Protein backbone atom coordinates (compact mmCIF):
# COMPACT_ATOMS: atom_id res chain seq x y z
CA UNK A 1 0.00 0.00 0.00
CA UNK A 2 2.57 2.52 1.19
CA UNK A 3 4.93 1.31 -1.45
CA UNK A 4 2.40 1.95 -4.15
CA UNK A 5 1.86 5.49 -2.92
CA UNK A 6 5.58 6.07 -2.95
CA UNK A 7 5.84 4.68 -6.41
CA UNK A 8 3.14 7.02 -7.64
CA UNK A 9 4.72 10.04 -6.06
CA UNK A 10 8.07 9.14 -7.46
CA UNK A 11 6.82 8.80 -11.00
CA UNK A 12 4.85 12.01 -10.65
CA UNK A 13 7.96 13.88 -9.54
CA UNK A 14 9.95 12.33 -12.34
CA UNK A 15 7.44 13.31 -14.99
CA UNK A 16 7.13 16.74 -13.46
CA UNK A 17 10.88 17.21 -13.61
CA UNK A 18 11.21 16.01 -17.18
CA UNK A 19 8.34 18.08 -18.49
CA UNK A 20 9.48 21.11 -16.52
CA UNK A 21 13.00 20.86 -17.90
CA UNK A 22 11.62 20.44 -21.40
CA UNK A 23 9.43 23.49 -21.10
CA UNK A 24 12.32 25.57 -19.81
CA UNK A 25 14.56 24.39 -22.63
CA UNK A 26 11.95 25.11 -25.29
CA UNK A 27 11.18 28.46 -23.68
CA UNK A 28 14.83 29.49 -23.66
CA UNK A 29 15.24 28.34 -27.21
CA UNK A 30 12.47 30.62 -28.47
CA UNK A 31 13.45 33.46 -26.16
CA UNK A 32 16.92 33.48 -27.67
CA UNK A 33 15.55 33.40 -31.20
CA UNK A 34 13.26 36.27 -30.28
CA UNK A 35 16.17 38.34 -28.97
CA UNK A 36 18.04 37.55 -32.16
CA UNK A 37 15.38 39.35 -34.15
CA UNK A 38 15.32 42.47 -32.00
CA UNK A 39 18.36 44.71 -32.33
CA UNK A 40 19.37 45.73 -28.80
CA UNK A 41 18.80 49.32 -27.71
CA UNK A 42 22.07 51.13 -27.69
CA UNK A 43 23.01 53.65 -25.06
CA UNK A 44 22.60 57.11 -26.47
CA UNK A 45 25.73 59.17 -26.78
CA UNK A 46 25.79 62.94 -26.94
CA UNK A 47 28.24 65.53 -28.08
CA UNK A 48 28.41 69.29 -27.63
CA UNK A 49 27.37 71.47 -30.51
CA UNK A 50 27.88 75.24 -30.70
CA UNK A 51 24.65 77.13 -31.50
CA UNK A 52 25.29 80.79 -30.63
CA UNK A 53 27.45 83.39 -29.00
CA UNK A 54 26.08 84.43 -25.65
CA UNK A 55 25.07 87.90 -26.73
CA UNK A 56 24.19 87.26 -30.33
CA UNK A 57 20.50 86.67 -29.66
CA UNK A 58 18.75 89.62 -27.94
CA UNK A 59 16.34 88.93 -25.11
CA UNK A 60 12.92 87.80 -26.36
CA UNK A 61 14.22 86.87 -29.76
CA UNK A 62 14.90 83.54 -31.39
CA UNK A 63 17.43 82.37 -33.90
CA UNK A 64 16.69 79.54 -36.26
CA UNK A 65 19.43 77.16 -37.26
CA UNK A 66 19.35 73.77 -38.95
CA UNK A 67 20.75 70.62 -37.55
CA UNK A 68 21.03 68.01 -40.21
CA UNK A 69 17.78 68.74 -42.00
CA UNK A 70 15.83 69.70 -38.92
CA UNK A 71 15.04 73.20 -37.70
CA UNK A 72 16.26 74.18 -34.25
CA UNK A 73 15.32 77.36 -32.38
CA UNK A 74 17.69 79.09 -30.01
CA UNK A 75 15.50 81.32 -27.82
CA UNK A 76 16.77 83.92 -25.39
CA UNK A 77 14.39 84.12 -22.41
CA UNK A 78 14.60 85.84 -19.06
CA UNK A 79 15.79 82.57 -17.55
CA UNK A 80 18.53 82.27 -20.13
CA UNK A 81 18.89 80.33 -23.30
CA UNK A 82 16.50 77.57 -24.32
CA UNK A 83 16.93 75.49 -27.42
CA UNK A 84 13.93 73.76 -29.00
CA UNK A 85 13.57 71.28 -31.75
CA UNK A 86 11.41 72.82 -34.47
CA UNK A 87 9.66 69.57 -35.15
CA UNK A 88 6.01 69.64 -34.19
CA UNK A 89 5.22 66.94 -31.65
CA UNK A 90 1.91 66.28 -33.36
CA UNK A 91 2.80 64.81 -36.72
CA UNK A 92 6.22 66.16 -37.43
CA UNK A 93 5.72 69.36 -39.46
CA UNK A 94 8.22 72.17 -39.04
CA UNK A 95 7.03 74.90 -36.67
CA UNK A 96 7.85 78.58 -37.10
CA UNK A 97 8.68 81.27 -34.53
CA UNK A 98 6.29 84.23 -34.40
CA UNK A 99 8.14 86.97 -32.65
CA UNK A 100 5.35 89.50 -32.18
CA UNK A 101 3.19 86.87 -30.46
CA UNK A 102 6.16 85.24 -28.72
CA UNK A 103 5.04 81.80 -29.74
CA UNK A 104 5.69 78.85 -32.05
CA UNK A 105 3.10 78.07 -34.65
CA UNK A 106 2.64 74.89 -36.61
CA UNK A 107 0.85 75.51 -39.92
CA UNK A 108 -0.22 71.91 -40.47
CA UNK A 109 -3.00 71.68 -37.89
CA UNK A 110 -2.69 75.03 -36.18
CA UNK A 111 -0.71 73.80 -33.21
CA UNK A 112 0.45 76.63 -30.93
CA UNK A 113 3.28 76.53 -28.38
CA UNK A 114 4.37 79.35 -26.13
CA UNK A 115 7.93 80.64 -25.94
CA UNK A 116 8.84 77.96 -23.39
CA UNK A 117 7.59 75.24 -25.69
CA UNK A 118 4.37 74.51 -23.80
CA UNK A 119 1.30 73.65 -25.84
CA UNK A 120 -1.27 76.44 -25.82
CA UNK A 121 -3.75 75.14 -28.32
CA UNK A 122 -4.15 72.68 -31.13
CA UNK A 123 -3.49 68.97 -31.40
CA UNK A 124 0.17 68.60 -30.26
CA UNK A 125 0.26 66.03 -27.45
CA UNK A 126 3.35 67.33 -25.65
CA UNK A 127 5.63 70.35 -25.50
CA UNK A 128 8.35 70.92 -28.04
CA UNK A 129 11.43 68.83 -27.45
CA UNK A 130 14.29 70.68 -25.81
CA UNK A 131 18.00 70.25 -26.02
CA UNK A 132 20.16 70.32 -22.95
CA UNK A 133 21.90 73.70 -23.00
CA UNK A 134 25.28 74.64 -21.64
CA UNK A 135 26.68 78.16 -21.49
CA UNK A 136 30.42 78.23 -21.45
CA UNK A 137 32.76 81.22 -21.84
CA UNK A 138 30.43 83.40 -23.85
CA UNK A 139 29.27 80.55 -26.00
CA UNK A 140 26.03 78.54 -26.03
CA UNK A 141 26.22 74.84 -26.65
CA UNK A 142 23.61 72.14 -26.90
CA UNK A 143 23.98 68.40 -26.45
CA UNK A 144 23.18 66.59 -29.65
CA UNK A 145 22.75 62.87 -29.93
CA UNK A 146 25.65 61.27 -31.75
CA UNK A 147 24.20 59.14 -34.50
CA UNK A 148 26.62 56.69 -35.93
CA UNK A 149 25.44 55.89 -39.40
CA UNK A 150 26.41 52.41 -40.48
CA UNK A 151 24.52 49.90 -42.53
CA UNK A 152 23.14 48.36 -39.34
CA UNK A 153 22.08 51.41 -37.39
Amino acid at each position, binding site marked *: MINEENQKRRSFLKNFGIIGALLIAVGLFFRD*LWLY*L*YPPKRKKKFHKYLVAKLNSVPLGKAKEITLGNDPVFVVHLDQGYRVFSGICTHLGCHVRWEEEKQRFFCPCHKGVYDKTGKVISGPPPRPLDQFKVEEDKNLVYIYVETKTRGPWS
Partner: protein
Amino acid sequence: MSVKAWLKERFPIDYDKFIEINENIFIKEPIPIHMKKWWYCMGATPLILFTLQVLTGIFLAFYFVPSPEMAYESVRHITQDVRFGFWVRGLHRWGANLMILSLFLHITRVYFTRSYQKPREINWILGVILFGLALTFSFTGYSLTYNQLSYWAVTVGTNLIKSVPIIGHSLLVFMRGGEEVTANTLTRFYMLHVWFLPLFLVFFLVLHIIVLRLHGVSEPEGFPKGKYFPFYPHHFYKIIIATLFLLAVMSALSIILPPGIGLPADPTTTPFHIKPEWYFYPTYRFLRMVPLKVGIYVTAAFLIAFTFWPFIEPLLSKKNSVRRNISYGVGALTLIITLALTIWESLT
Protein backbone atom coordinates in the same frame (compact mmCIF):
# COMPACT_ATOMS: atom_id res chain seq x y z
CA MET B 1 -22.23 25.85 -32.33
CA SER B 2 -19.25 23.84 -31.32
CA VAL B 3 -15.86 24.52 -32.84
CA LYS B 4 -15.87 21.09 -34.36
CA ALA B 5 -19.19 21.66 -36.07
CA TRP B 6 -18.08 25.08 -37.27
CA LEU B 7 -14.92 23.64 -38.76
CA LYS B 8 -16.77 20.75 -40.28
CA GLU B 9 -19.00 23.15 -42.18
CA ARG B 10 -16.00 24.98 -43.60
CA PHE B 11 -13.91 21.91 -44.29
CA PRO B 12 -16.32 19.16 -45.10
CA ILE B 13 -14.04 16.23 -44.39
CA ASP B 14 -14.93 12.98 -42.76
CA TYR B 15 -13.16 13.58 -39.49
CA ASP B 16 -13.32 10.09 -38.12
CA LYS B 17 -11.79 8.82 -41.30
CA PHE B 18 -9.16 11.54 -41.16
CA ILE B 19 -8.18 10.60 -37.63
CA GLU B 20 -8.16 6.96 -38.56
CA ILE B 21 -5.87 7.56 -41.51
CA ASN B 22 -3.64 9.70 -39.34
CA GLU B 23 -3.48 6.97 -36.74
CA ASN B 24 -2.64 4.36 -39.31
CA ILE B 25 -0.01 6.45 -41.02
CA PHE B 26 1.75 8.03 -38.07
CA ILE B 27 0.71 6.90 -34.64
CA LYS B 28 0.60 3.21 -35.35
CA GLU B 29 3.21 3.02 -38.08
CA PRO B 30 4.70 -0.41 -37.55
CA ILE B 31 8.41 -0.15 -36.88
CA PRO B 32 10.56 -3.27 -36.97
CA ILE B 33 11.99 -4.29 -33.66
CA HIS B 34 15.63 -3.69 -34.65
CA MET B 35 14.90 0.05 -34.79
CA LYS B 36 14.98 0.10 -31.02
CA LYS B 37 18.72 0.16 -31.46
CA TRP B 38 20.04 3.68 -32.01
CA TRP B 39 22.47 2.65 -34.71
CA TYR B 40 19.61 1.49 -36.92
CA CYS B 41 17.47 4.58 -36.75
CA MET B 42 19.93 7.22 -37.83
CA GLY B 43 17.92 7.97 -40.96
CA ALA B 44 15.79 10.39 -38.97
CA THR B 45 18.83 12.46 -38.01
CA PRO B 46 19.20 14.16 -41.40
CA LEU B 47 15.49 14.90 -41.33
CA ILE B 48 15.71 16.51 -37.90
CA LEU B 49 18.80 18.44 -38.93
CA PHE B 50 17.13 19.58 -42.13
CA THR B 51 14.18 20.94 -40.18
CA LEU B 52 16.56 22.83 -37.91
CA GLN B 53 18.51 24.09 -40.93
CA VAL B 54 15.33 25.53 -42.39
CA LEU B 55 14.58 27.27 -39.12
CA THR B 56 18.05 28.72 -38.54
CA GLY B 57 18.35 29.53 -42.25
CA ILE B 58 15.22 31.66 -42.13
CA PHE B 59 16.63 33.47 -39.13
CA LEU B 60 19.96 34.10 -40.84
CA ALA B 61 18.10 35.53 -43.82
CA PHE B 62 16.83 38.31 -41.57
CA TYR B 63 20.29 39.86 -41.60
CA PHE B 64 22.22 38.37 -44.48
CA VAL B 65 22.65 40.61 -47.53
CA PRO B 66 23.70 38.79 -50.71
CA SER B 67 25.88 41.40 -52.37
CA PRO B 68 29.66 41.40 -52.78
CA GLU B 69 29.95 44.56 -50.67
CA MET B 70 27.67 43.41 -47.89
CA ALA B 71 27.80 39.60 -47.74
CA TYR B 72 30.95 39.36 -45.65
CA GLU B 73 30.00 42.38 -43.57
CA SER B 74 26.54 40.98 -42.83
CA VAL B 75 27.99 37.64 -41.77
CA ARG B 76 30.36 39.56 -39.51
CA HIS B 77 27.45 41.57 -38.17
CA ILE B 78 25.46 38.42 -37.40
CA THR B 79 28.43 36.78 -35.73
CA GLN B 80 29.69 39.73 -33.71
CA ASP B 81 26.86 42.23 -33.16
CA VAL B 82 23.50 40.53 -33.28
CA ARG B 83 22.31 39.06 -30.00
CA PHE B 84 22.67 35.27 -30.18
CA GLY B 85 23.82 35.72 -33.77
CA PHE B 86 26.88 33.56 -33.18
CA TRP B 87 24.56 30.88 -31.86
CA VAL B 88 22.09 30.94 -34.75
CA ARG B 89 24.93 30.94 -37.23
CA GLY B 90 26.77 28.28 -35.24
CA LEU B 91 23.70 26.05 -35.30
CA HIS B 92 23.38 26.50 -39.04
CA ARG B 93 27.04 25.87 -39.75
CA TRP B 94 27.38 22.90 -37.43
CA GLY B 95 24.00 21.62 -38.58
CA ALA B 96 25.35 21.55 -42.13
CA ASN B 97 28.45 19.66 -41.06
CA LEU B 98 26.53 17.19 -38.93
CA MET B 99 24.07 16.78 -41.79
CA ILE B 100 26.80 15.54 -44.10
CA LEU B 101 28.23 13.39 -41.34
CA SER B 102 24.87 11.85 -40.52
CA LEU B 103 24.25 11.21 -44.22
CA PHE B 104 27.60 9.42 -44.46
CA LEU B 105 26.55 7.26 -41.51
CA HIS B 106 23.06 6.69 -42.89
CA ILE B 107 24.42 5.68 -46.28
CA THR B 108 27.01 3.41 -44.69
CA ARG B 109 24.35 1.73 -42.57
CA VAL B 110 21.99 1.28 -45.51
CA TYR B 111 24.81 -0.07 -47.63
CA PHE B 112 26.11 -2.60 -45.16
CA THR B 113 22.69 -3.87 -44.19
CA ARG B 114 22.11 -4.09 -47.96
CA SER B 115 18.77 -2.40 -47.56
CA TYR B 116 18.98 -1.15 -51.14
CA GLN B 117 18.14 -4.56 -52.53
CA LYS B 118 15.06 -5.30 -54.60
CA PRO B 119 12.44 -3.87 -54.31
CA ARG B 120 14.02 -0.82 -52.70
CA GLU B 121 16.48 0.14 -55.48
CA ILE B 122 14.64 3.33 -56.35
CA ASN B 123 14.82 4.57 -52.80
CA TRP B 124 18.58 4.15 -52.83
CA ILE B 125 18.74 6.32 -55.94
CA LEU B 126 16.45 8.90 -54.36
CA GLY B 127 18.81 8.85 -51.40
CA VAL B 128 21.81 9.46 -53.64
CA ILE B 129 20.00 12.42 -55.19
CA LEU B 130 19.26 13.76 -51.71
CA PHE B 131 22.90 13.37 -50.76
CA GLY B 132 23.92 15.28 -53.88
CA LEU B 133 21.46 18.03 -53.00
CA ALA B 134 22.84 18.19 -49.46
CA LEU B 135 26.37 18.61 -50.82
CA THR B 136 25.21 21.33 -53.20
CA PHE B 137 23.46 22.97 -50.28
CA SER B 138 26.69 22.99 -48.30
CA PHE B 139 28.75 24.27 -51.18
CA THR B 140 26.39 27.14 -52.03
CA GLY B 141 25.90 28.00 -48.37
CA TYR B 142 29.63 28.02 -47.71
CA SER B 143 30.16 30.37 -50.64
CA LEU B 144 27.68 32.90 -49.26
CA THR B 145 29.97 33.91 -46.39
CA TYR B 146 32.13 35.57 -49.04
CA ASN B 147 35.45 35.30 -47.31
CA GLN B 148 38.72 34.50 -49.03
CA LEU B 149 38.33 30.72 -48.74
CA SER B 150 34.72 30.59 -49.82
CA TYR B 151 35.28 33.01 -52.69
CA TRP B 152 38.12 30.93 -54.04
CA ALA B 153 36.20 27.72 -53.41
CA VAL B 154 33.55 29.06 -55.76
CA THR B 155 36.16 30.04 -58.31
CA VAL B 156 37.83 26.63 -58.23
CA GLY B 157 34.58 24.69 -57.91
CA THR B 158 32.89 26.36 -60.85
CA ASN B 159 36.07 26.05 -62.89
CA LEU B 160 35.79 22.28 -62.56
CA ILE B 161 32.50 22.41 -64.45
CA LYS B 162 34.40 23.56 -67.49
CA SER B 163 35.70 20.03 -67.95
CA VAL B 164 32.24 18.67 -68.63
CA PRO B 165 32.38 17.70 -72.32
CA ILE B 166 30.69 19.94 -74.91
CA ILE B 167 28.38 21.94 -72.64
CA GLY B 168 31.06 22.69 -70.02
CA HIS B 169 31.59 26.30 -70.96
CA SER B 170 27.90 27.16 -71.20
CA LEU B 171 27.37 25.54 -67.81
CA LEU B 172 30.14 27.62 -66.33
CA VAL B 173 28.70 30.85 -67.69
CA PHE B 174 25.29 29.81 -66.46
CA MET B 175 26.52 29.04 -62.95
CA ARG B 176 28.56 32.22 -62.66
CA GLY B 177 26.19 34.49 -64.50
CA GLY B 178 29.08 35.50 -66.74
CA GLU B 179 32.67 34.52 -67.38
CA GLU B 180 33.91 35.63 -63.98
CA VAL B 181 32.79 35.19 -60.39
CA THR B 182 30.81 38.37 -59.74
CA ALA B 183 27.75 39.70 -57.93
CA ASN B 184 25.74 37.58 -60.36
CA THR B 185 27.38 34.45 -59.01
CA LEU B 186 26.61 35.40 -55.44
CA THR B 187 22.93 36.07 -56.08
CA ARG B 188 22.67 32.88 -58.13
CA PHE B 189 24.15 30.82 -55.32
CA TYR B 190 21.92 32.59 -52.85
CA MET B 191 18.85 31.88 -54.94
CA LEU B 192 19.90 28.22 -55.24
CA HIS B 193 20.52 28.00 -51.54
CA VAL B 194 17.27 29.50 -50.31
CA TRP B 195 14.75 28.68 -53.04
CA PHE B 196 15.72 26.11 -55.57
CA LEU B 197 17.50 23.55 -53.42
CA PRO B 198 14.97 23.61 -50.57
CA LEU B 199 12.11 23.02 -53.00
CA PHE B 200 13.97 20.21 -54.71
CA LEU B 201 15.09 18.70 -51.47
CA VAL B 202 11.63 18.69 -49.96
CA PHE B 203 10.25 17.11 -53.12
CA PHE B 204 12.76 14.25 -53.09
CA LEU B 205 12.58 13.92 -49.34
CA VAL B 206 8.84 13.39 -49.48
CA LEU B 207 9.32 10.82 -52.24
CA HIS B 208 12.05 9.12 -50.22
CA ILE B 209 9.79 8.84 -47.20
CA ILE B 210 6.74 7.76 -49.20
CA VAL B 211 8.71 4.97 -50.85
CA LEU B 212 10.13 4.01 -47.49
CA ARG B 213 6.65 3.83 -45.99
CA LEU B 214 5.27 1.88 -48.92
CA HIS B 215 7.83 -0.86 -48.45
CA GLY B 216 8.26 -0.46 -44.73
CA VAL B 217 11.66 -0.27 -43.16
CA SER B 218 13.82 -3.13 -44.37
CA GLU B 219 14.65 -5.74 -41.78
CA PRO B 220 18.31 -6.60 -41.66
CA GLU B 221 19.54 -10.14 -41.23
CA GLY B 222 20.17 -11.30 -37.72
CA PHE B 223 17.05 -9.88 -36.14
CA PRO B 224 13.77 -11.65 -35.46
CA LYS B 225 11.55 -11.09 -38.49
CA GLY B 226 8.04 -9.75 -38.35
CA LYS B 227 8.20 -8.15 -34.93
CA TYR B 228 6.95 -4.59 -34.82
CA PHE B 229 6.18 -1.84 -32.39
CA PRO B 230 4.02 1.23 -33.05
CA PHE B 231 5.58 4.58 -33.98
CA TYR B 232 3.99 6.24 -30.97
CA PRO B 233 5.19 6.52 -28.25
CA HIS B 234 8.57 4.77 -28.38
CA HIS B 235 9.86 6.04 -31.70
CA PHE B 236 8.22 9.40 -31.31
CA TYR B 237 10.08 10.08 -28.07
CA LYS B 238 13.23 8.77 -29.61
CA ILE B 239 12.99 11.51 -32.22
CA ILE B 240 12.34 14.14 -29.54
CA ILE B 241 15.36 12.96 -27.60
CA ALA B 242 17.48 12.98 -30.74
CA THR B 243 16.35 16.54 -31.52
CA LEU B 244 17.20 17.80 -28.05
CA PHE B 245 20.50 15.98 -28.11
CA LEU B 246 21.43 17.46 -31.48
CA LEU B 247 20.45 20.96 -30.37
CA ALA B 248 22.53 20.61 -27.25
CA VAL B 249 25.52 19.29 -29.16
CA MET B 250 25.29 21.98 -31.82
CA SER B 251 24.88 24.74 -29.25
CA ALA B 252 27.89 23.45 -27.38
CA LEU B 253 29.91 23.26 -30.58
CA SER B 254 28.90 26.82 -31.52
CA ILE B 255 30.35 27.98 -28.24
CA ILE B 256 33.45 25.80 -28.11
CA LEU B 257 34.26 25.91 -31.82
CA PRO B 258 32.38 28.91 -33.22
CA PRO B 259 32.55 29.30 -36.99
CA GLY B 260 34.95 32.09 -37.85
CA ILE B 261 34.43 34.78 -40.44
CA GLY B 262 37.83 34.60 -42.12
CA LEU B 263 39.24 37.38 -44.25
CA PRO B 264 37.05 39.31 -46.66
CA ALA B 265 37.09 37.97 -50.20
CA ASP B 266 39.78 39.50 -52.34
CA PRO B 267 39.41 38.61 -56.02
CA THR B 268 42.95 39.80 -56.76
CA THR B 269 44.91 37.45 -54.51
CA THR B 270 44.51 33.72 -54.12
CA PRO B 271 45.19 32.67 -50.55
CA PHE B 272 48.18 30.46 -49.88
CA HIS B 273 46.33 27.50 -48.45
CA ILE B 274 43.17 26.83 -50.30
CA LYS B 275 41.02 23.95 -49.19
CA PRO B 276 37.41 22.94 -49.53
CA GLU B 277 35.27 21.81 -46.60
CA TRP B 278 36.21 18.44 -45.15
CA TYR B 279 33.53 16.46 -46.96
CA PHE B 280 35.09 17.37 -50.27
CA TYR B 281 38.56 16.28 -49.12
CA PRO B 282 38.48 12.83 -50.76
CA THR B 283 37.40 14.20 -54.14
CA TYR B 284 39.75 17.15 -53.86
CA ARG B 285 42.73 15.00 -52.92
CA PHE B 286 41.95 12.55 -55.68
CA LEU B 287 41.55 15.25 -58.31
CA ARG B 288 44.95 16.65 -57.42
CA MET B 289 46.62 13.24 -57.61
CA VAL B 290 45.74 12.47 -61.20
CA PRO B 291 45.46 14.49 -64.41
CA LEU B 292 42.29 16.59 -64.36
CA LYS B 293 40.51 14.79 -67.20
CA VAL B 294 41.21 11.37 -65.73
CA GLY B 295 40.13 12.51 -62.32
CA ILE B 296 36.85 13.85 -63.54
CA TYR B 297 36.01 10.77 -65.58
CA VAL B 298 36.91 8.39 -62.76
CA THR B 299 34.86 10.42 -60.30
CA ALA B 300 31.93 10.43 -62.72
CA ALA B 301 32.24 6.65 -63.21
CA PHE B 302 32.32 6.14 -59.46
CA LEU B 303 29.23 8.29 -59.03
CA ILE B 304 27.34 6.32 -61.65
CA ALA B 305 28.33 2.97 -60.12
CA PHE B 306 27.43 4.30 -56.68
CA THR B 307 24.03 5.53 -57.83
CA PHE B 308 23.06 2.36 -59.67
CA TRP B 309 24.68 -0.12 -57.32
CA PRO B 310 21.34 -1.76 -56.39
CA PHE B 311 20.91 -2.65 -60.06
CA ILE B 312 24.54 -3.56 -60.63
CA GLU B 313 24.88 -5.89 -57.67
CA PRO B 314 22.37 -8.54 -58.88
CA LEU B 315 24.29 -8.80 -62.17
CA LEU B 316 27.46 -9.88 -60.41
CA SER B 317 26.40 -13.32 -59.28
CA LYS B 318 23.37 -15.53 -58.84
CA LYS B 319 24.37 -16.55 -55.36
CA ASN B 320 23.35 -14.25 -52.56
CA SER B 321 26.36 -15.07 -50.43
CA VAL B 322 28.77 -14.24 -53.25
CA ARG B 323 26.94 -10.97 -53.95
CA ARG B 324 27.05 -10.12 -50.30
CA ASN B 325 30.77 -10.71 -50.08
CA ILE B 326 31.41 -8.60 -53.17
CA SER B 327 29.24 -5.82 -51.79
CA TYR B 328 30.95 -5.89 -48.44
CA GLY B 329 34.34 -5.90 -50.14
CA VAL B 330 33.51 -3.01 -52.44
CA GLY B 331 31.94 -1.09 -49.58
CA ALA B 332 34.85 -1.64 -47.25
CA LEU B 333 37.32 -0.64 -49.95
CA THR B 334 35.36 2.55 -50.72
CA LEU B 335 35.18 3.36 -47.06
CA ILE B 336 38.90 2.83 -46.54
CA ILE B 337 39.88 4.85 -49.59
CA THR B 338 37.53 7.67 -48.62
CA LEU B 339 38.85 7.77 -45.09
CA ALA B 340 42.45 7.53 -46.23
CA LEU B 341 42.06 10.37 -48.73
CA THR B 342 40.30 12.49 -46.13
CA ILE B 343 42.99 11.95 -43.54
CA TRP B 344 45.74 12.48 -46.08
CA GLU B 345 44.22 15.75 -47.24
CA SER B 346 43.66 17.01 -43.73
CA LEU B 347 47.30 16.34 -42.87
CA THR B 348 48.75 18.22 -45.83
